[in-house]
């Protein structure tokens, strides 16, 4: 279905965008809420949610066939939070994100082809991790979940979650560097 959506988006089909909005509003809103740590009012979160879909639409011709919408939307959402806080002259409450994992100095995520490629590469790298490390990484970096929530859900201590995240980060950095998304320590 997602491939079809991307194809239809590229054909300027607004009904495809509406279908995507209906499916992913909750997903995007949740990520925005998590990454803002609940500091933005609902009105702002909904505005940011709308901006995410607008950005998807404005960049529809850059989407690669077969690419995933969910991580792409998550990236735009997270970046939207970051920009909103910059507008307010504040630091975003949560600043890690999965683009940090690449240690790339790519410019802020604007939906360009490089970002799409980077996300695809990162997903492949994540696939090499064992569970629950992969899920922890996704939930922490993609969804902005707190380590305390992860600890509770995975029946671990908070310190154990952080340790696993730390080790997984190291593995991913190595993999991403090998695949051309440097940087190297």
């Amino acid at each position, binding site marked *: 279905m*997602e491939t079809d959506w991307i194809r239809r988006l590229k054909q300027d089909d607004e009904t495809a965008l*509406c279908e995507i909005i209906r499916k992913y509003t909750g997903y995007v809103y949740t990520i925005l809420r998590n990454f803002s740590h609940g500091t933005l009012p609902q009105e702002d979160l909904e505005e940011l949610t709308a901006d995410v879909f607008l950005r998807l639409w404005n960049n529809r011709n850059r989407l690669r066939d077969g690419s995933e919408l969910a991580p792409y939307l998550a990236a735009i959402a997270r970046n939207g939070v970051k920009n909103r806080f910059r*507008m307010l002259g504040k630091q975003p409450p949560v*600043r890690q994100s999965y683009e940090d994992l690449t240690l790339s*100095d790519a410019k802020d995520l604007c939906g360009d082809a490089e970002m799409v490629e980077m996300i695809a590469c990162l997903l492949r790298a994540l696939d090499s991790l064992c569970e629950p490390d992969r899920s922890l990484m996704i939930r922490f970096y993609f969804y902005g979940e707190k*380590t305390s929530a992860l600890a509770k859900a995975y029946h671990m201590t908070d310190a154990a979650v*952080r340790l696993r995240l730390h080790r997984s980060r190291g593995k991913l950095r190595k993999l991403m560097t090998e695949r051309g998304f440097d940087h190297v320590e």
Partner: protein
Amino acid sequence: MSNETNWLKDLPPFQPDEDPQRAERVQKRVLQKLDEPVESEEIAMKPKMTFHRIRPLIFAAAAVAVGAVSLITANAATGGELFSKLSIYLNGEKQDYDVELVSQDDSQLTYKIKDENGNEYTYQENSNSVEIQADGDVADGEVEVEVSGNASDLPAADTAE
């Protein structure tokens, strides 16, 4: 979605905030905006603030524009290691600073840096990136950031990892 990443579908966020009415409101807002003229996608910035990502680790190099307030971001400076000394090279001139770890939470370390003139800087680092926010003019030229020392030189703080 490729087969190798099917697991992503089975991993939604905790407590997803699903609300059909919200989806309708968002859709309405998006469709309204689609009818408006397209604006350029400039990243909103704090006035007079420059933001640069630079590619360093322990050393960082980048051009920094003139500005009353400069924010320098260096990727992956220390990989989360604690440190007690910070050196900033501006146009090749090295300035050394002692740093004080003032807070440490789930996501980042925050250091306070004071120079000999009493100016204060904030140096924030999560495990993969570093930001330095400084008041004062920063001339065009190269900036390098170097950190040194070790955790034993720092005030007591719980280590995250």
